[in-house]
């Protein structure tokens, strides 16, 4: 177990190296320059050159990358070009609201998705199954920027139940979390349904039924637990997707968060900030996946890590 964890955490190093290198190259190869964006289109050539030198942007890309790595290893992600604040400070301020949103959406998606999936799989009437499958199709197909605006129009403007602009507080979290959760819940429902259906065809389920175990118990005790492994895998992958999806949902609902910060950083070619955000999100992704691997063992005692 410990060896497994050590190995997985060591893998973090090449992963993050790859991620930083890829982001670094992508940012630097995109046309547009942070200094002209910062100084304005009309800045004199000498001002641009001076600031580029001060920010170290005039050095070869390799040198810039190595300098970034050297500082990052010591826990210094540099300063944002746009706001001139330390990158850590910017991220620390924006990470919590995004985590709250993504976690709320994840909980909603898991609850709704698994319930719908199991209900569809175990439904005696085919119409219930078809209805649930149809609803998931809608949930999957609606882009969040559109469904988010529809929810605002319905619940905030027409019904007046929920605020549009209030930030913080549970009431302000409801609409964004629902919007973000909907496509994830739809995917989970479909995966759960398929997985449960497959497990229900297994011999041990037939045995359980033959023993006279109630259908309810068969589905929830015997089938669901074994059907959860693929569901969990998908849910874990989705979590990172939710952080990415937060980019759009945060904009639509004017919520502060990492997603919007990332967009601003990229549009203003704020290299250090964009780099820092990618680093944080990538690390989160790796940690979530290590966590999921551990949960596999809990769900299925046959899975052991050496």
């Amino acid at each position, binding site marked *: 177990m410990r060896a497994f964890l050590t190995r997985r955490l060591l893998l973090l190093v090449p992963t993050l190296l790859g991620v930083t290198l890829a982001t670094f190259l992508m940012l630097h190869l995109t046309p547009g320059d942070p200094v002209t*964006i*910062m100084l304005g289109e*009309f*800045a004199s050539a000498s001002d641009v050159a001076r600031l580029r030198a001060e920010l170290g942007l005039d050095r070869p890309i390799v040198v810039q990358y190595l300098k970034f790595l050297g500082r990052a290893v010591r826990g210094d992600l540099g300063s944002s070009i746009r*706001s*001139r604040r330390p990158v850590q400070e910017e991220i620390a301020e924006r990470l919590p609201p995004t985590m709250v949103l993504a976690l709320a959406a994840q909980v909603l998606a898991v609850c709704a998705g698994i319930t719908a999936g199991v209900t569809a799989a175990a439904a005696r009437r085919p119409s219930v199954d078809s209805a649930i499958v149809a609803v998931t199709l809608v949930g999957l197909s609606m882009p969040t920027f559109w469904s988010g605006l529809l929810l605002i129009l319905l619940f905030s403007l027409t019904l007046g139940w929920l605020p549009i602009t209030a*930030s913080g507080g549970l009431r302000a979290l409801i609409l964004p979390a629902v919007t973000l959760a909907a496509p994830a819940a739809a995917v989970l429902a479909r995966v759960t349904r398929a997985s449960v259906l497959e497990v229900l065809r297994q011999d041990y389920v037939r045995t359980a039924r033959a023993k006279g175990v109630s259908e309810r118990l068969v589905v929830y005790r015997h089938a669901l637990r074994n059907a959860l492994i693929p569901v969990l895998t998908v849910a874990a992958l989705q979590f990172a997707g939710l952080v990415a999806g937060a980019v759009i949902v945060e904009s639509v609902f*004017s919520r502060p968060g990492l997603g919007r910060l990332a967009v601003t950083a990229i549009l203003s070619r704020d290299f250090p900030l964009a780099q820092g955000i990618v680093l944080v999100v990538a690390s989160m992704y790796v940690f979530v996946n290590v966590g999921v691997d551990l949960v596999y063992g809990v769900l299925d005692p046959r899975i052991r890590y050496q």
Partner: protein
Amino acid sequence: MAAARALARIVVLLLLFLTLVPLPLTHAQPQPGGELALVSTEEPDTLDPQKTGTAVTGLLMRYLGDTLLTKDLKGSYIPALARSWSVSGDGLTWTFQLRNDVKFHDGSPFNAQAVKASIERALSPDTMSPIAGSLFGPVADVQAAGDFTITIKLKEPFAPFLDNLTDPRAMIVSPQAVRDLGDKFGRSPVGTGPFKFQEWRSADRIIFARNPDYTWAPSTVHAGPPFVDRVVLRIMPESAAQVAAFERGELSVLALPPTDVRRLQGTNKYTIYSFLRKGVGLFMEFNVTKEPFSDIRVRRAVSHAIEKNSVLQIGLEGLGEVASGPLPPSIWGYWDGIKEYAPKYDPGKAKALLAEAGWQPGPDGMLQKDGKPFSFVLYTAPIDTWTRSAQIVQSQLRAFGISMEIQTFEFGTLLAKLKAGEHPAEFMGYTYTSPDIVQLWFHSSNIGTGLAFSHNKDSKLDSLIEASRRETDQGKRLTIYRDIQKYVVDQVLWVPLWTNTNYIAVQPNVQGAKTHPDGFLLLNDVWLK
């Protein structure tokens, strides 16, 4: 020149800035209290006026700070922190007599030493100032000549000097706060304005509170402190959400997106002010160094082939007017004769010019020359009204056998490409306060570094523009600007398409709103019913 360049940064940000005309005064008794909610799509980079590059910070500094002088509602210079000013005969030494009854929000005294420290900070290379530093021009020396007298010596005469001093980013900041707060100053700025900084919740809102000590208001507004307790700037990236929030009463004032203008006008619930944008909202610009638009006959043919009214009606839903030259009627210096002078929609002339330039219809009906088809890429930005307009132009040109491909780029990328001159033609627009904008678009010194995206090297145009910047006689300047407008039309560097009308909706409970011709809302007199 550097200052004008910095000022013009606003242009490229292309924000629908509040560019308003004076609103009528209401005569009811103002009531104190309440909160006024404004909204911005963009979040400020910093609230340090000397370090900011974002337009929204400039807007906020109007409320947080005061400048040495300011402009009244007609655009004349009036005293603000300076009671009076004078300039030496050679135009090099400016002397300002300061008010002696002003103090900063942190309680520190306002005097000549503070002004000197503030200006010197803006000019210091350590500040790395994107805009503020260049506003003051070629400063040689700033001296406090007594407690309330300051002299600024310039290295050479600088025509935009007084105008630049009214820029909100030239506000005087508290040197004591700068010292005490260091890098934190940008998140808790200290000035002398009618409102003081209270709180900045990142990506959410910025809150300013009434400055109860404010007794030094300029003559455009009432003398005492403002009436509302708080001004809140909400940061909302999504315009549809802004409209919904305004309709729900969560915002007091909103610059309306074109798609919502007719609907909100129809509700009759809000006061809606409209004014013509100070700038050309959309024009097609040719890169004269690239085929096929290096041929002036081809450029002229295109200008005769586009029927602008359809572009206006469909692209902009008719919310504006057709543009004819490089300046709109809303900017001083506009020559009214340009409407008649500019090329009109004329299919016959367009076809004749294309034929003259050697473009003949091929077997598929599309034009070709030496076996090459007439096709080009129009570079544009992801703005709804621009995209729709591009589609109309595309179909209009197709009727002449010209194939135009539309390529949309994110704005930062687009500008880099236009500067490099990769494009055959592009869509652009601008907002500016003075006719000096022609220098930025057309002077050859701005090729590759500035806005001269036509990449047109033309000594005649250059000398006309230089003359317009030297000339102090307003009548003679008008004549020069007329010649520039005619010349730009003659050379068909642009096909001006439309200038939009901006619409500002205000909640019915907002009283006493005054708008300034330089494009902002004066909040000193605003009160809530």
